[in-house]
């Protein structure tokens, strides 16, 4: 998941970015409003964290502009002004949730996970599709109630696919959204990771969680909700 953090205070921005990276996100940072808006409009972003009190261009304007341009990724606002007027203005402008400074980084990560899950249409924090269950807060994948050992990159892929269960995701999108820096990585690597995931989740090839659509990408194929 590629996140955008727009915050003018360097210490806060960098330490928050670090914590988010530790939690497995690819993070873009912007130090002022104009730069932030540029990233929001031009980069492949899954979620933006926007500080409301920014130099150059206010957080509210960034949110309005991004929404106007048709960007529908979730937006989490950071606000120092703990007043409802500001929260309502932010939510009204198109943000989806707010966190009041000084926040616990864990709080931000939890909100980010919830928003990402929500953006894929999941309303519960446990995502269940047939025998497969993903707990984002613990980064835990279970198949038939058994935890599967995954590398962090494998986890990122299954999380991304499962949040968007039913949608076709291209290899390019996966590389863009999941690698921290280098977009130019060989897309064959993705195929390798998908292969490993299939082996770990479905060793006897019975549930077929990930479908390959030739030339188009991959799709998490199991229906949402527990087995009947």
């Amino acid at each position, binding site marked *: 998941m590629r996140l955008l953090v727009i915050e003018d*205070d360097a*210490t*806060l921005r960098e*330490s*928050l970015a*670090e*914590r988010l990276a530790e939690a497995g996100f690819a993070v873009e940072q912007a130090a002022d409003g104009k730069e932030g808006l540029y990233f929001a409009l031009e980069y492949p972003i899954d979620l933006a964290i926007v*500080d409301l*009190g920014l130099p150059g261009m206010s957080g509210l304007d960034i949110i309005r502009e991004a929404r106007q341009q048709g960007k529908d990724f979730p937006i989490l606002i*950071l606000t*120092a*002004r*703990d*007043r*409802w*007027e500001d*929260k*309502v203005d932010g*939510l*009204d402008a198109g*943000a*989806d*949730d*707010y966190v*009041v*400074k*000084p*926040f*616990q*980084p864990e709080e931000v990560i939890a909100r980010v996970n*919830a928003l990402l899950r*929500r953006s894929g249409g999941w*309303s*519960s*924090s446990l995502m269940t599709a047939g025998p497969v269950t993903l707990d984002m807060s613990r980064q835990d994948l279970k198949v038939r109630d058994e935890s599967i050992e995954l590398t962090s990159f494998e986890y990122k892929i299954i999380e991304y696919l499962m949040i968007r269960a039913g949608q076709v995701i291209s290899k390019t999108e996966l590389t863009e959204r999941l690698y921290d820096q280098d977009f130019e990585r060989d897309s064959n690597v993705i195929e390798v990771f998908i292969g490993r995931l299939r082996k770990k989740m479905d060793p006897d090839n019975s549930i077929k969680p990930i479908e390959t659509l030739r030339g188009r990408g991959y799709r998490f194929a199991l229906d949402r909700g527990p087995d009947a």
Partner: protein
Amino acid sequence: MSSLNARLLISVSVLLLFFFGVTIVVLDTAFRSAGEQSREDVLDGHLMALLAAAEPTDQGELAMPADLHDPRLSSIGSGLYAEIRNSAGVVRWSSKSALGHELPFGATAQEGSRLFQKESLSDATPLLTLSLSVQWEFPDGELKPFVFRVAESLDSFNAQVAKFRQQLFGWFAAVALVMLLAISTLLRRMLRPLRQIETEIGAIEEGKRQSLSGQYPTELQGVARNMNLLIDSERARSDRYKATLDNLAHSLKTPLAAMRALLNQGLPKKFSGRFDEQIERMDEIVRYQLRKPATLATKNLVLTQVSVAKEVDRLVDGLRKVYHDKDPVIETAIDDGIQFRGDKGDFLELAGNLLDNACKWCASRVRITIRQALSETGDKSGLVLSVADDGPGIPADAAEALLQRGTRLDESTPGHGIGLAVVKDIAHSYGGQLSIQTSDLGGAEITVTISPATT
């Protein structure tokens, strides 16, 4: 006597009364004395005619002809009388008209001079008399003193004066009435700009206007301009105050947030926990101190009308996003066209904190009700806002404690936290009350009653 209009009208009435009173007295006196003068001239004429008509007889008396110059002298009780007395005061002749009347015989004039006197007949009829003492020279050369006396009843004269007075009073009263009406109309016109200022200030205080209009006469333009300057500076001050608080919040909380984010990097857990506690404390102090009601002492000049339904809709839309996973059913029941007279931020703070708490604690349902509070005078600026949920509710003793307590930070209840303290502060700053009940939904119901302004 608080109204300028009444003051001016009363002063003008007193002045008019004085002026007209003096005028009436002067005119009355002049009319009377002119009338009396002409009466005297007439009496003098009669006396001269009598003198001319008198004929000396051989007996040493004076004889008067039967036909006198004025027929009234021959008609009984006509009001014009004449007599002649000798030096002893005995009546030697009296006109027919005096038949049955004894003319009063007052002081006698000095010889050769006239004496006017006001006397009255035996039946109290007022008279003006003129007497003249003469030495009559008889043909034999003897001189005999006689007193000639004419008297005229003043009845008709007095009636004339009374009629004059009546007319005088009538006309002056009419003129005074017309003048007072004219003056009060004039005053109303002159004072209209003042009344307009009063109305417009009222509208500003109700938040219906932003400033005084510029349509004032020259004398009042300065006042209006200064009033507008005052209002603008109050608004600016209020905005500056908010901006200062915002900046302060931003510049204090961003470093606190940064500290938190840095904490877990490399510090042993037991230190980071303690640091975190301190950060929490600082944050609470900052939050509480910076969320004081936005309005100041001169709030009447900076208030606006806040459209309650619109702001609640925005809040509910926002909260639906924030509580997306819980997805509570939020019902709103708001009177049509209801307005909150005050600061928009204050209203959002009241409703936002209550709704947020309700969403946090509810099982699945939240209801916000806002009704107009009507005062006895029909002023509609008050409102009753209540938020109910179907959560665990607040036990009666805890509710009591929440309401009784001061708003000191360390006393605010966890969970309802600063939010409720802020609601209470704001409600109080608008002269309102906070109460906690059990709602029919099963959970807590918190009601804020802001009564119509008493200022």
